[in-house]
């Protein structure tokens, strides 16, 4: 996987709260057996009408907004545990999602696909939405090493949390399975003393 250190990008704003994974990728698109191609159906029912024509005022269809950072309203990714939601977000080309609150499973899924969830305060989030309204070309800078996110329009920075282990995974491009596989002896040791019926 690509290593992640810093990223400066324009953003795609989605100021809607409680965006659930059924909106991110509707169930009827879950039938694939590979991880490819989900980006095409990201936010499918907000993005296309029933005939498959793009819905003009949805942000992904608005050429004004592009970038590798999705900025979404509070409680992003609730509902179904489908990792397809993370594959869709990643497949579309987002490497960071910023919100003031994420659902747990989505957060894990995103990180397992090298999409970085960045949690900011409600105030910082609404400032981003104001900045981008004023200037669609505004950028954010994510600095993973220092765990900061900067709104380059206002110059304001905000720190974010990530555990040391996951941070290392992003910085080095390593995944959990590599790590777990290196612990096989510990697992077998555990199995010997485990209570099981």
């Amino acid at each position, binding site marked *: 996987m690509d290593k992640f250190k810093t990223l400066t990008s324009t953003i795609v704003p989605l100021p809607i709260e409680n965006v659930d994974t059924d909106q991110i990728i509707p169930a009827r698109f879950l039938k694939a057996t590979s991880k490819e191609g989900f980006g095409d159906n990201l936010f499918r029912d907000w993005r296309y009408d029933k005939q498959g024509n793009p819905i003009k005022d949805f942000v992904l269809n608005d050429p004004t907004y592009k970038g590798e950072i999705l900025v979404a309203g509070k409680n992003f990714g609730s509902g179904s545990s489908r990792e397809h939601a993370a594959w869709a977000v990643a497949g579309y080309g987002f490497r960071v999602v910023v919100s003031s609150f994420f659902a747990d499973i989505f957060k894990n*899924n995103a990180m397992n696909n090298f999409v970085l969830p960045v949690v900011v305060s409600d105030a910082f989030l609404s400032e981003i939405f104001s900045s981008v309204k004023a200037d669609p070309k505004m950028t954010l800078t994510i600095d993973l090493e220092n765990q900061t996110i900067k709104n380059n329009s206002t110059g304001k920075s905000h720190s974010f949390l990530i555990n040391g*282990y996951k941070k290392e995974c992003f910085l080095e491009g390593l995944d959990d399975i590599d790590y777990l596989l290196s612990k096989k002896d510990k*697992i077998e040791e555990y199995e010997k003393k*485990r209570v099981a019926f």
Partner: protein
Amino acid sequence: MNTLFDKIWDSHVVTKVEDGPTQLYIDRLFCHEVTSPQAFEGLRNRGLQVFRPNQVYCMPDHNIPTMNQEMPIVDPVSKNQVDTLDKNAKDFGVQYFPMGHKKNGIIHVVGPENGLSLPGMTIVCGDSHTSTHGAMGAVAFGIGTSEVEMVLATQCIFQAKPKTMRIRFEGRLKAGVSAKDMALYMISQLTTGGATGYFVEYAGEAVRNLSMEGRMTLCNLSIEMGARGGMIAPDEKTFEYVKNREYAPKGDDWKKAVEYWKTLNSGDDAVFDKEVLFDASEIEPMVTYGTNPGMGMGINSSIPALNSIEKSSRDSFTKSLNYMGFQSGEKLIGKPVDYVFLGSCTNGRIEDFRDFAHFVKGKKKADGVVVWLVPGSWAVDKQIKAEGLDKILTEAGFELRQPGCSACLAMNEDKVPAGKYVVSTSNRNFEGRQGPGARTILAGSLVAAAAALTGKIIDPRTL
């Protein structure tokens, strides 16, 4: 510490990564066809086998049709996904209940009813409603596909330890109020993100009084308020339920198991990160009016007025009501209904069919309402027939479909058409969840039965 959750979690820790997650041992992995193919593919790409195939149980449930399961699946894409699970199960030698098998059904119904989900276990599945199995007194939670791959490869998972929350329902439920109503009430109070980051233990008189199936319904909906999982300490009812089920321990093992299970509870000195108390006697039969499970209210109440909603949430609230075709401030009682769905891992168990059948006995289905009755598993179907409930249903004008997830997420043909209203006993009323444009009103089995008889939203206690 010393909570039920801590006891089970701590006994499953293999290692702890410094400033990182815990490596947790998993007793049982369940897989369905939607969230597992990429995990098996991942194993192939890495040249790995399944580490403990006897602890992995697979079954297709999401895509399968609820009519003519004896025939090949018509939709080629669904068929491909189910065939892929068939192949993966064979290639990797894991336990498998294919479509039509007498143990097939929705995973969260099948696990407990076969004694595969037991107290004290850690149970995971690539499915958020894995929380259902917590009713057995297990730590059960939904995971993503990368995590499914981890468990297939190592029988372990990396997890940050969640915080703990205890939700107590004290007092007694009114007649006609069910576990589903308790859950919808709780979510409406705590909101859909209210338990994010927490693992919940349900306790209190009204929880202890629930049947095992009611407990499963309550735990099932934990995820709808964002909780990592929900669980209930095992008690005599649990042991009674588990005893003699196919995969439950037998003989001497049984005695030892029960002895151990009796230690699984939160001690008097247990400390939770958060405590919530509800008065069970205040709960009414519930319905939802919006597009997330937190938008629920007592069946006779009115949708909140716009100005009572927090300013920042008003746009989302309005969007949601527009989708549903409802006005803020209005009542739902008396509104016409086009479809009724009884089923899903929330309310597709035998007790739900008993409640529904007893309610409609001697009455007739309303004309013009399409009613889908979908048992959660073949075992439920068998029991329905053994108890003669199918006859009651037929006489009242209903027919039974075959088991599966069905209209809960509409991946098969059971889709509610755009703009139509469905009273659904499932768990999600998200936009398009039950079919593009479908409008879902979540409720318990009795409200569903009342809607099926009258074609309206109606308080079942008034019929």
